[in-house]
């Protein structure tokens, strides 16, 4: 039940953010000439109308959906709460590592951070040492290929 509430809350926050973005784009589009504002306002207006209808739909039921049930995605509903927490932790760790990879890569160059990212994730997921070594070395090789063969400058950062 708690999980259902979490999903519903998360979903509401996501829908609210989407609606806020649409409202911002709709209002600021008035700064553009009429020909340039038509599409941004049409798209954001559509999102706003759909969001309003979703709210209204809670009070005046009408079948806008083919399946009204809240979808519990990601894993089976009968999983234990411990397993769910572990799943979520794994996902959050990966999300944090990806964010770190990109931001630190922006600061010092993706080439230097690539092996660190791969090594950190493989160690976190407790892979055998030789698997960790091989994958880390292979991905460093991939980054090197980008530098040498594709002439992409990932050695220097963007700052």
């Amino acid at each position, binding site marked *: 039940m708690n999980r259902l509430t979490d999903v519903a809350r998360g979903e509401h926050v996501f*829908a609210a953010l989407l609606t806020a973005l649409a409202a911002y784009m709709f209002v600021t589009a008035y700064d553009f000439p009429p020909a340039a504002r038509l599409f941004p306002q049409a798209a954001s207006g559509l999102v706003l109308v759909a969001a309003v209808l979703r709210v209204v739909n809670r009070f005046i039921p009408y079948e806008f959906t*083919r399946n009204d049930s809240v979808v519990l995605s990601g894993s089976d509903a009968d999983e234990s709460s411990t397993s769910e927490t572990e799943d979520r932790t794994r996902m959050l760790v990966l999300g944090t590592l990806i964010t770190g990879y990109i931001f630190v890569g922006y600061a010092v160059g993706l080439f230097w951070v690539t092996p660190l*990212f791969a090594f950190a994730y493989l160690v976190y997921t407790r892979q055998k040492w030789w698997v960790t070594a091989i994958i880390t070395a292979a991905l460093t090789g991939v980054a090197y290929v980008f530098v040498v063969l*594709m002439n992409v400058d990932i050695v220097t950062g963007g700052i």
Partner: protein
Amino acid sequence: MADLNVLIHAIETVLSWPGIALIALGVVIGIIGGGLPGVGGALTLAIATPFTLQMGAVNAIIFLIGIYNGVMYGGSISAILFNVPGSASAAATTLEGYPMAREGRAVDALTISAVSSSIGDFLGGVAVLAILPVLVSVVLMFGTPEYFLVAVLGLSLIIIVSEGSFLKDVMAGGFGVMLATVGVAPMLPVQRYTFGQLGLYNGISFVAALIGIFAVSEMLRLSKQGGAISRGGAVDIGGSVRSGIRTVLAKPITLVKSSVIGLLIGAVPGSGGSVSTFIAYGEAKRASKNPEKFGDGAEEGIVATESSNNATVSGSLIPTLTFGIPGSTTTAVLIGALMLHGIRPGPALFGAQINLTYSIFVTLIVCSFVILALGLLVVRWAGYLTTVNTSIIIPIIIVLSVLGAFSLNSNYFDVFVVLTLGIIGYFMESYDYSLVAFLLGLILGPIAEENLSRSLSLSNGSFDIFFATPLRLFLVVATVVIIVGPYIGPALKKQFNSITEA
């Protein structure tokens, strides 16, 4: 005669070096990508696209078509061996493939899948090549106003692709169009939502957005799963290649019928392999002399699903290449790859760049032979693919995605787009917002806007231009029917029934 010359030139292009090697490489990569559940076609193509930057446009597209075909076959490997479809379009294959594998006939099932996929590919490619001259004359009838109307028609398909909440899918589609409006407005020197950032002047990179939506969000989801892909019990890789080939060749009607189903349904935007395989499976069961065997390892079931699955590729390329409307998420990525190489789907592909169009469909036919050869070669070792630990796949995909996104324009802005849209895509999928609807908005929004601007400047601002010819009127009516049909149709049917009962 001109068509024949173009066809011969396309055959030469595809069969010469490095064309044929790129097809083989593409099919191998596709089989691996398709065989890994959670990876699939769109993700494999999205990651491979930046690597094509160094190739010429024709070679790049040949390589990507090879991947697309390989994915369609690869999806059946884990479906047959472990009851886990590698892609949505392989879901129907689990119904008969897994029971066959449990009976110790995994090699039979994998061979049937490889041969049927190959024949489906071949028939689909030949059929589209045959109708291509007609298709060319149809496409050349379309001008700027028609392309605007087709784009709007494509956007209205969000209603058809909607499987969950319609309002959420409208929001997803609208969000796609919203993102597409970032950057300089078409035909006007106006910057929109760029916040003075140079990286936003050309808008959000479509390929970077696709990499984020498919790669990062999918890896976040996969990280929750952990462990090896295989979840089922051990399956003996038993059976024989020869008997598998004989089984397929003994069912020519099922093969042809299922390929036609795949071709036709693939041509309907938003449907794709996941729909066509179940329809072909249902039809094979209906027409079978032994329908009671279905569900317990009926070979006909695999023949039907796999031939229709691969024929879907040819079908889905028709709306993709003619109007830029993606037939599936995988073809949406293919549109991104075309755009990356400066190719815009539409009349140009049927005029000045007709050689590329022919090369694409010749590639499909060549792919059928490559899939047959590689498919039969790997049947006994295919099982190893599904024992790979997801924790090993994840850093590989993420590194390829991030480096690939950076290589698109050599700027970090695209990398941030990958991160942002990866997170957004994860939440969209978690909360049941359609990614297909989002992609339709992202792809068709700019096409619609650009053609609307051009049309209105042709007509001095009058909207009458969209009703001026029977073709345009037809497109308007078709759009209206698609939008209101699902709501008015049942009411009219109810009314009609009550009148007849009275």
